[in-house]
């Protein structure tokens, strides 16, 4: 185990050496830190109303002003980050795990199973995400779990397809033939030899996918299909701000800025991660 930890250390050092990667690391680190310790950081209760101080501009008391119900926007942004990660992380990792499994089965298994899984992936992909989300929300009602489910279901095919392509390339490579001629079973080939070759690629994809998911969650909340009010969400903040943009522009900034920052941070991190993890690129270092 000590071995793999030092490898993780190597990856982090590699990312930190790259200026963009370092920036991504700092932004993502800040977001994660704020999300974990949101309860202690927020200066006000993110759902606590205070009608007397509604629609205020930024001040030392309210760093990003207040909304139409007098809630502190800064506190809501911090708490919204928690919601964003609560949606993004399980959805992305769930989709990655399921997509990886199905993709490897499709790539290594018999042709008919491959065709069947590809048909399934294409069927899912052919639904517009928002339409699919509308349908699901209409059936079970808006909630955090619904958003997680919708996001996960719609991103499984992406991971599945990448995992399948990787598996197809790998299964014909000489080192897999070498493993087979050394008597390795199918599970050993898939689990020990192919998985580490595929998981790096998918991890990079996941890091780049997190901002998409955050934006999707914000979008769904903006449309009123995401988390239920008064739970603070960046999308909901944006929606409130949008309707009140003439009275106070601060709400839009409060809702928009974290989405932009999170997108940039995770994208930088993902791109840098791709360069560091890829063994073919690592060779040249």
């Amino acid at each position: 185990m000590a071995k793999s930890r030092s490898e993780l250390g190597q990856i982090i050092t590699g990312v930190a050496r790259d200026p963009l990667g370092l920036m991504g690391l700092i932004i993502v680190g800040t977001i994660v830190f704020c999300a974990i310790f949101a309860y202690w950081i927020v200066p006000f209760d993110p759902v606590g109303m205070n009608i007397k101080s509604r629609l205020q501009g930024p001040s030392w008391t309210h760093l990003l002003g207040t909304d139409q119900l007098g809630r502190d926007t800064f506190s809501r942004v911090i708490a919204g980050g928690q919601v964003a990660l609560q949606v993004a992380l399980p959805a992305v990792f769930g989709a990655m795990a399921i997509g990886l499994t199905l993709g490897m089965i499709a790539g290594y298994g018999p042709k008919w199973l491959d065709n069947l899984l590809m048909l399934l992936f294409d069927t899912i992909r052919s639904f517009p995400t928002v339409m699919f989300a509308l349908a699901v929300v209409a059936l079970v009602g808006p909630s955090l779990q619904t958003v997680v489910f919708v996001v996960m279901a719609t991103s499984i095919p992406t991971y599945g397809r990448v995992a399948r392509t990787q598996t197809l390339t790998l299964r014909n490579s000489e080192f897999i033939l070498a493993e087979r001629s050394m008597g390795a079973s199918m599970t050993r080939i898939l689990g020990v030899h192919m998985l580490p070759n595929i998981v790096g690629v998918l991890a990079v994809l996941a890091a780049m996918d997190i901002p998409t998911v955050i934006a999707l969650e914000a979008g769904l909340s903006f449309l009123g299909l995401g988390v239920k009010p008064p739970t603070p969400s960046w999308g909901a903040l944006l929606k409130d701000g949008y309707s009140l943009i003439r009275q106070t522009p601060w709400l839009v900034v409060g809702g928009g800025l974290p989405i932009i920052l999170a997108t940039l941070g995770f994208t930088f991190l993902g791109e840098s991660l791709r360069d560091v993890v890829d063994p073919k690129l690592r060779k040249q270092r």
Partner: protein
Amino acid sequence: MTDTLLEIDRLSVDYETARGDLKALRDISFDIRKGEIVGIVGESGCGKSTLISSILRLTAPNTRFRQGEVRFKGQDLLQLPERKMRDLRGADISIVFQDPMQTHNPVLSIGQQMLDIQHRSKASKAEKRARAAQMLGAVGIPDPEARLDQFPHEFSGGMRQRIAIAMALMSEPDLLIADEPTTALDATLEVQIIERLQELQQEFNCAILFISHHLGVIAELCDRVVVMYAGAVVESGEVREIFHDPKHPYTRRLIDCDPGHIKERARVLPTIPGEVPDLANLPGGCIFRDRCDLATARCVEVPPLAKLKEGHHAACWLNHKEAAE
């Protein structure tokens, strides 16, 4: 013959293609005794790779075994259930591939891979690691214990091939198949690898099936040699016999073409004129007929692989008077 390890008996293998059946191997027969080094020579496309994958039963999906048997310790491998076959691979029979740059998993350290191929062993992780280090030492990797934690790309080609040999010999197999193990390496490394193989063969006393198109290496290393042409055995016998007194015109031409045998400086290296016949659409008679300068009217019939003397067979009508049938 109890000391026969591998016996290939009248093996014919086809590939089903859109152009019809490609007759990759036809009526191949030869055997390998315990602890013996047998070389297979032949130009590209003569069926060497098909032969290896047939022995290991790791053939492409469009492969059809038409006739014959591959008997390993008396057991026909072609009839063995897949599970039994898998138990044999990497335990009793193992293989070293041609390109050392491609045979290792790029994302796992050498140690992880060497531990993984000991998956049949009940030994503890530390014991397996010690065994891996010992094997690396045996193939001449300096400081093996530390190098176990390195990744394949941190080794040179020659080292990687030595690691591949170490991995193949780890289970002390009875038969090691070496599929052109030195083709991808330069001449100095080739000599090193061959010497190392010879030493290890003495140490582990395994039989080696050595595939190469480098005649010099075959002459240096092997006890016996099988010459293949277009999917058939044209001549087989003791290395000394074959090299000093080749009885098949193809073998003779092959030796003449070997740069190591050319005494005078020549502007153009000698070649065998013509091309290997189309295996999907075989001409009748002797397969070498079109390229043979000694062909006679008799050659429209397929010559049998006839025994010329103990341990020397050739498939050519020219020897027929000599052949003691």
